[in-house]
């Protein structure tokens, strides 16, 4: 294994072969240019599909059989149901009953609710999980228990991998809160409504076979058709596709921690003092407790200054919906919906627009939104003194989180990381991150409860906030302060030689890898 490792442009040793396929080491930002044509679909003829448009089959197993499931195939799924998903386990259970082996599961993300799949890995039904790995699934992979090498991609990177033909999906399973018998489907209606289905879009477009699974079958037409029936082979109706309370929350809670509130407020004030918050601007904020508080503080500052945004990208929540309804923004461009107010707004308000990784993040698009959102606020598990940031591993080396849209959002002209300076004695600002998910040159501002550090590459931002009363520090000052509190820098984790997962950059090149935790 070690002879296929090389150093990439950010100084990390990465594999040049992943699961038997060649891989390209990260050559620097905006350097890689693949050529040729994107992957194409198999030619189908509508004569082979029911003239009455009824594609409903008896159950998941029947659908898998009709799709020709066999050993070694790739089955994909989306994660709009987050930790409330019930469909994926049903699919792989059916596959196990059919006796197939060596499957690759290609989710947009795996959650703790998918823990039963780990048993199927141990039984050999599933050989590889290729997608963002959260919690117990990431831990399982970190400990070297997965036979193949994990591959972590951003939302945009997943779309790119499918388009490049790097990942060929044999069967896509699209869990849909509402669908008709023809296969049109959406996420805005039904008992398991999740807002939209953007993470399943590439799957429906590029997979050889597409199965829609729903618990809310409606007469044709199911509209809006976020997933188009023309791309769907079979429709399966089950009792329940998800647990609604785990898909979206009734009300999203903002953080109550005074430290996190301070961080959120400092980030909002930075936006104002740096002159980013001005009429017609745009920003993205997610649904984490700190990001929500940030949006609330920013909305307050916007009101006081009489400023209106042109659009806000979410992760939508009731707080972004409030901004839309109070006239603080013209549009919400939504990638995933986190609470019931978000779902309602997306369904009823034409200014609340469903987006997908294609419109927002796609590397092979002729441009994408993420590069012209004026500012984004994102989380991180670690940041180093060179502003490199990590979102997938903890300082103990374990892989516990996915990348999500995080890497894609780094395309913004102002990337702000509002993060605590340490968590429960674990420093967040350190000498060298355990895993590089984003290169330092793409990260502009780190906001902690102890002060704000601006990347020295961004002299323009440094000049813009000069003379403000923001607590500005250098990243080294922050690091020293934290080390004094925590009792020195943390020891490096004990890691093995074996590479258990590769971290892809948004263009498909390999920016870092994760080693086995001993």
């Amino acid at each position, binding site marked *: 294994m070690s002879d296929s490792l090389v150093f990439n442009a950010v100084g990390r040793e990465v594999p040049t072969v992943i699961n038997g396929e060649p891989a390209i080491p990260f050559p620097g930002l905006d350097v890689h240019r693949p050529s040729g044509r994107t992957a194409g679909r198999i030619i189908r003829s509508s004569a082979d599909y029911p003239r009455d448009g009824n594609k409903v089959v008896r159950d998941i197993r029947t659908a898998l059989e009709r799709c020709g499931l066999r050993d070694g195939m790739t089955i994909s799924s989306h994660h709009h149901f987050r930790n409330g998903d019930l469909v994926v386990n049903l699919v792989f259970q059916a596959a196990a009953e059919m006796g197939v082996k060596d499957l690759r599961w290609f989710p947009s993300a795996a959650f703790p609710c998918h823990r039963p799949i780990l048993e199927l890995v141990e039984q050999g039904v599933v050989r590889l999980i290729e997608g963002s790995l959260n919690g117990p699934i990431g831990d399982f992979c970190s400990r070297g228990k997965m036979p193949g090498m994990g591959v972590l991609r951003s939302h945009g990177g997943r779309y790119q991998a499918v388009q490049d033909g790097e990942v060929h999906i044999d069967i896509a399973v699209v869990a849909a809160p509402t669908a008709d018998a023809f296969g049109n489907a959406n996420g805005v209606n039904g008992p398991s409504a999740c807002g939209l289905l953007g993470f399943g879009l590439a799957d429906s477009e590029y997979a050889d076979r597409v199965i829609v699974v729903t618990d809310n079958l409606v007469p044709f037409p199911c509209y809006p058709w976020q997933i188009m029936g023309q791309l769907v082979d079979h429709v399966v109706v089950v009792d329940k596709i998800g647990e609604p309370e785990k898909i979206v929350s009734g009300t999203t809670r903002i953080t109550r921690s*005074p430290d996190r509130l301070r961080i959120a407020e400092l980030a909002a004030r930075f936006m104002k003092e740096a002159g980013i918050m001005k009429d017609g601007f745009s920003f993205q904020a997610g649904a984490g407790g700190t990001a929500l508080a940030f949006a609330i503080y920013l909305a307050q500052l916007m009101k006081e200054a009489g400023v209106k945004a042109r659009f806000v990208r979410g992760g939508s929540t009731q707080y972004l919906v409030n901004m839309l309804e109070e006239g603080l923004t013209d549009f919400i461009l939504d990638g995933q919906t986190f609470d019931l107010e978000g779902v309602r707004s997306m369904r009823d308000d034409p200014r609340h627009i469903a987006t997908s990784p294609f419109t927002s993040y796609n590397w092979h698009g002729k441009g994408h939104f993420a590069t012209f959102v004026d500012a984004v606020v994102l989380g991180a598990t670690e940041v180093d003194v060179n502003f490199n940031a990590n979102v997938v591993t903890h300082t103990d*080396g374990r892989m516990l989180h996915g990348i999500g849209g995080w890497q894609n959002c780094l395309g913004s002209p102002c990337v702000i990381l509002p993060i605590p300076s340490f968590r429960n*004695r674990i420093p967040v600002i350190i000498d060298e991150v355990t895993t590089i998910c984003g290169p330092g040159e793409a990260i502009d501002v780190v906001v902690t409860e102890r002060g704000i550090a601006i990347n020295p590459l961004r002299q323009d931002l440094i000049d813009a906030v000069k003379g403000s*009363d923001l607590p500005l520090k250098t990243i080294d000052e922050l690091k020293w302060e934290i080390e004094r509190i925590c*009792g020195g820098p*943390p020891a490096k984790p004990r890691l093995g030689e074996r590479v258990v997962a590769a971290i892809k950059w948004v263009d498909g090149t390999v920016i870092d890898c994760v080693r086995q935790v001993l």
Partner: protein
Amino acid sequence: MAEAGVRGPQVRSDCWVNLEPGGSDIRIELKSTVLSMYGEAIHSQTRLVMETLGVTDALVQIEDGGALPFVLAARLETAARRAGLPIEAPALPEPLAGRFVQSPKNRLRRSRLYLPGNQPNFMINAGLHGPDAVILDLEDSVAPGEKDAARALVRNALVAVDFCGAEKMVRINQLPAGIRDLSWVVPYGAQLILIPKCEDPEQVKAVHQAIVTLDPPGRVWLMPIVESALGCLRAYEIATASPAVVALTIGLEDYTADIGAQRTQEGRESFWARSVIVNAARAAGVQAIDTVFSDVEDMEGLRASVVEAKGLGFEGKGCIHPRQIRVVHEAFAPAPQELEKAMRIVRAFEEAEQRGLAVVSLGSKMIDPPVVKRALATVDLAVTMGRLQPDWREREALA
């Protein structure tokens, strides 16, 4: 077996220590949420602490949930003391750079943030929220069986935690027990001692004397808390019992119970007592500080309560949550018209002074010296709070 601290999966920034004397060396059994990162550091700190304490033979079991070094040291020391071992020297954490600084007698004391003395997680970032003072509390927020643990933790926090310029106050226990608290805090950087349930000037004198005996490197100030009917009647004597008294405050929960009344939102039952405190403090030339506002969700209620307190003559308010601090500061800030008027008076006063006039007048009205004094104080407060530029006179002259 001698335990200290807390354990369990919910524990953050704290640890549990069990110490069993015996054997012929120090044996450490460690479980920690930060094992791979700080396991070595915890081992070496534990050995160092045992050496400092003079403990040579013991089994030390630690279950750590991310305790910072100053916390671990305090828990280890408490366990050793509870084991009944003779202690050679306290195991102090690495001190912050900088020595004890005496705080200015009349510094701003608008907000004081209460920090329970046995809960390290609230202490760590308290100073970042900008209170005028933090109160490390050894009294009501600490369970009777944990007083010893809180003393060690508060002492270590005074030594090692950066409170970002907030005045470091400690609330000791009710006398006479509180006297014993002093040797744990006075030599380690406490800048002001709150004396709870104070109803006798002799109590103030006793604390003063005990502090002098400890020979601190500078003046340690006192703030008696009056919490009873008798205390109110003796408020002036209490405020003048020692030159170290800089402020007088009131605790309304105990006071209302003492007079047999219910504490209400409007506070009619405590109006007299609060006015007495203000009056006694002013007569003694010290600051009058109001009680805490205990509903941490009700920011509008807090604001109204501070405005009312300011109206009665108070200069400060107790806080039990960091979110209250800003509201308190804003409500104590001079209102725009108040400031405008004060600036006009100060200008008139300075003009009169320059022209050698004995009498200050503004328009057709004569201004009394106390009014001038109050106006100067208002302007100073506005400058301190950033509501007014320090060079406002020059700026106005130019305009």
